[in-house]
């Protein structure tokens, strides 16, 4: 249902903007109920916002950002275009490739398919927060040392997905890695390095904990 301006002449085509224009956006406790609500229901409920810019507060990497955005703006575009936080990449723009992976309350999400307004009240973590004073995180270090990157455009998304994955699976099997990171795509063909990197990062993180 995204943009598709090319389909504008086709009857019945609905853009995100058209949908939001018609429906307004219903905000309840900072959470957005899209999809499940019909236009009539939405209009009937309280807290209809948009389609014009509305104040949106985002907590990103521990910092609070106050923005004025149209409710249709995605979390990814809010960060990339309005806050110049560009580590997360825009690739498929429809929740297929994982290049935009961020953590929302520690859970990985495809930021291209989360509206900025939906992210209000949640803790957003991006790849920028994982380096402290320029020091690479164990996952980053393992990706670098195993050459788990070529052009590097998918890499931040993979690093984020891998970080969340190892949090849940500190002792991953190869099969778990293939499932757990199956939501990210690489075009240059770096999966062999990524498999090695994930195993090595898992080891390094355990070592770090033991020493710590």
């Amino acid at each position, binding site marked *: 249902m995204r943009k598709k301006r090319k389909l504008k002449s086709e009857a019945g085509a609905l853009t995100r*903007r058209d949908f939001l224009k018609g429906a307004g956006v219903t905000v309840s406790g900072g959470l957005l109920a899209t999809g499940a609500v019909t236009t009539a229901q939405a209009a009937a409920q309280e807290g209809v916002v948009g389609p014009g810019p509305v104040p949106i507060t985002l907590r990103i990497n521990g910092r609070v950002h106050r923005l004025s955005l149209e409710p249709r703006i995605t979390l990814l575009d809010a960060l990339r275009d309005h806050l110049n936080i560009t580590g997360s990449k825009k690739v498929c723009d429809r929740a297929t490739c994982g290049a935009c992976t961020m953590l929302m309350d520690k859970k990985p999400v495809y930021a291209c398919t989360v509206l900025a307004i939906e992210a209000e009240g949640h803790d957003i973590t991006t790849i920028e927060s994982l380096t402290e004073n320029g020091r690479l995180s164990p996952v980053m270090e393992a990706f670098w040392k195993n050459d788990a990157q070529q052009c590097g455009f998918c890499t931040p998304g993979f690093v984020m997905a891998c970080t969340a994955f190892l949090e849940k699976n500190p002792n991953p099997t190869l099969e778990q890695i293939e499932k757990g990171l199956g939501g990210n795509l690489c075009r240059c063909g770096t999966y062999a390095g990524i498999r090695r990197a994930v195993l090595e990062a898992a080891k390094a993180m355990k070592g770090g904990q033991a020493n710590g």
Partner: protein
Amino acid sequence: MASCKYDWPAAGQRDAIGKSTDRIDGPAKVSGRAKYTYDINRPGMLFGKMLTCPHAHAKIKSIDVSPALKHPGVKAALVIQDVGSEIQWAGDEIAAVAAVDEATAEDAVRLIRVEYDVLPHLVREENLSKDGDRAKPAGEQKVGDPDKAFADPEAVISEGFYGIPVITHCCLETHGNVVEWRGADSILTHSSTQNVSGIPSQLGAALRAKKINVQDSNIETICQYIGGGFGSKFSIDRWGVVAAELSKQAGGKPVKLMLDRDEDLEVAGARPSYFGHVKVAASKDGTLTAWSSETWGTGGPGPSGVPPVPYILTNIPNIYKKHTSVSTNIGPARAWRAPNHPQACLMTLAALDDLAAKLAMDAMEFLQKNIHLAPSYLVNTYQQELSKAAELSEWSKYWHPRGDKTPGHLKRGLGVSLHTWGGRGHAGSCNVIVRPDGSVTVQSGTQDLGTGTRTVIAVVAASTFGLPVDAIQVEIGDSRYPFDGASGGSTTVGAASAWTRRGSVDALNELFAAVAPSLGVQANQLEARDGRIQVQGNPSKSLSWKDACAKLGAKTIHTVGKNPGPCNLGSVGVGGVQVADVTVDTETGKVKINRLVAVQDCGLIIDKLTAESQVYGGLIMGVCYSLFEEKVMDQTIGRMLNANMEFYKLAGIGDIGGELIVHMMTGPGYDERGVIGLGEPPVISPGAAISNAVANAIGVRVSQLPLTPRRVLAALAKGGIA
């Protein structure tokens, strides 16, 4: 002793050259700090969007961009193709706007009114008999007497149909630029490009053709990082010129115009298709005697390209071949990693594999027996590589005659293929700067596509100066630096290693001259080793690098390294062999990769780690186009049906099999050829190797790539072991 002062050092004296060096821009990339074109946000930047044509073939009857221009937030709007223009593919650019944000630009584009006269289109070419006058002869050739060879009653003949569809580049960073005017006559572009040094002159010429006066020398292009190119990003492209025009209209404000994913898949990169009927003959002992092929393909509205068949075994004594180019309305072709080779490779190696099966010969033995028909300079390489690939794949253990006879629905098979590529370094240059404080910088208007250019430059300079790799500052990706060629055809590492070497040797000799008096010897008696400048054979007479550079006083050494240049630091022509090991589920038709083996030659390796990564990448990209990728066109609506990444499938991490085995041919016989590029070769063979492995597993050829479950089941329905 080296015969020329620029020669590569002898084995054992190469320092970091040939060892594994972590890529020097790795930390920037893994941490998200690396800024790609798509990440560039400039002050006051506007967002550009284009209206594209919904029809595969049409003439523009009327166009009105004024409603878009009136839309709040829109700062510029223009017609790209005016009334009367004939549009040849869906997705072609018609008009554009620039607005304060992306969403506003999208809204404004929807306000543009265009009327079309829709014309008849052709977007599917695989059935040549239906292609009518869109099919044009594209070459016919005869060698020897193929008719006689095929008529020989002793000949064993195999005939087959094989095909490989149009696929796209699907770079993860879509094509695009951020363009701004710096005053009335100067432009800065941030471009996602494989051709940093070439973009200014392209943009300048395109703008002057539109009566917008700007000199090439006043255009600067920057591309520090690029999210994939694979041959599709050599040009400023129409959308880059449009961004410059929009920027001018908006008073010079920066305009970011990146293609959307659907635009990128529809128009910004397609590899020509290749279909054909092939007939091959051999004598009963398996010696190839004749080749005949009638092939066709489409490269969109332009020519399809002519894949070189028979591939590798070019000296088959009797050859007939005829190619037809079909003009279609699918969008233009672009060079796709190893242009024409994956197609030629599949057509040839699949046909030969079928012939070997008909002869009841082991496919590996069949290739060994006929490898003398390859160009003579590659015969020895291939012989060694075939043996190595057989060993690494445990060929004799796992290969079996066609059709895995073990009970059950899982059938395992092995397939082999071979390939070649040129890879000579292109023309280019660099600055090498050695400063009195000991710092060293190499600058070039080249680019690093993720292939490791930066790292290669650092390794060569460091090894020449006897310094650690991290002592070298590498500055690339800006057209103000010395000109370098485009990164296409595996030409960059050959060039960059050579110009870095020449510039560094010259700089070192200048340093020797400055240092020699204080060490009381002639400059030619000095050498650079382990961070010191020392008298050859007498390390006790030495200066640290830093102290040596201090002898320069106020003078900075500044040399220019060029390629080509004195001494032969690289060459051309590599060979590679790959083996695929697959399991096919005869109930679901799903092909699973068990193992892939790649044995590859590329002359002297500079960085083993990134060289091997190129081969892994080639194998994995090969899995993508062998099993998943196809630009699916619909003849009724004339559109691409899968212009998104859900349905334009790439392999995921779980699709690449258990084990990828990469073996680089190095050492005597290989290293002395110097540096040869490696980007293209490893992506050529996977299609044929995997297709042959599937045929070996199920006993029947799946004639077309990708080897989807539907195609596998259809082939099984016609025959095979099931």
